[in-house]
């Protein structure tokens, strides 16, 4: 597996699962919070990735 995007999705999934389990108690809240963390991870990574085009080091 060498796709960086798939690895990003995989990493975000596991971190979101752990955060959701630790920070919320009810299953419905855990699913909602986990989905939000996952989405924020992926979207922010893509946005930062695009910003690195015009502002590369």
């Amino acid at each position, binding site marked *: *597996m*060498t796709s*960086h995007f798939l*690895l990003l999705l*995989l*990493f975000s999934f*596991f*971190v979101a*699962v*752990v955060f959701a*389990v*630790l920070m*919320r*108690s*009810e*299953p419905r809240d855990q699913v909602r919070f986990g989905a939000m963390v996952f989405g924020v991870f992926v979207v922010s990574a893509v946005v930062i990735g695009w910003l690195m085009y015009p502002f590369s080091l």
Partner: protein
Amino acid sequence: MRADAARRVAGGGLALLVLVSWLVPGAGHLWLGRRSKGFILLAALIAMFAIGLWLDGRLFPFELSQPLVLLAAIADAALGVPYAMAWAFGLGQGQPAAVTYEYANAFLIAAGLLNMLTVLDAYDTALGRKGGS
């Protein structure tokens, strides 16, 4: 539920709970009766660690002369028994030329850091600071 969790670690068991929680991810929650949390944490953290090793990640050595390497080593070791087993079997040598090397290290380091959070969560739960299932 809170009183029940506190009763389970009464009598000086708090230090043992923290130790067990560090050695085996999710074990502290299982001990406290949070079975679903414990099993999910166990599966997620072991899976992250295994993926990190599979993608040619490196278990960093404890080198005092290189502070960042030392911090990475501490984070790796925070996973407890899985880290010790991987080290004992010679896994985690790392392949810096592999395209997945940096991602693999992120998986390995994050797994250890998340286990630190898990230990803190088990500690708080044992003290009755957190409720839930």
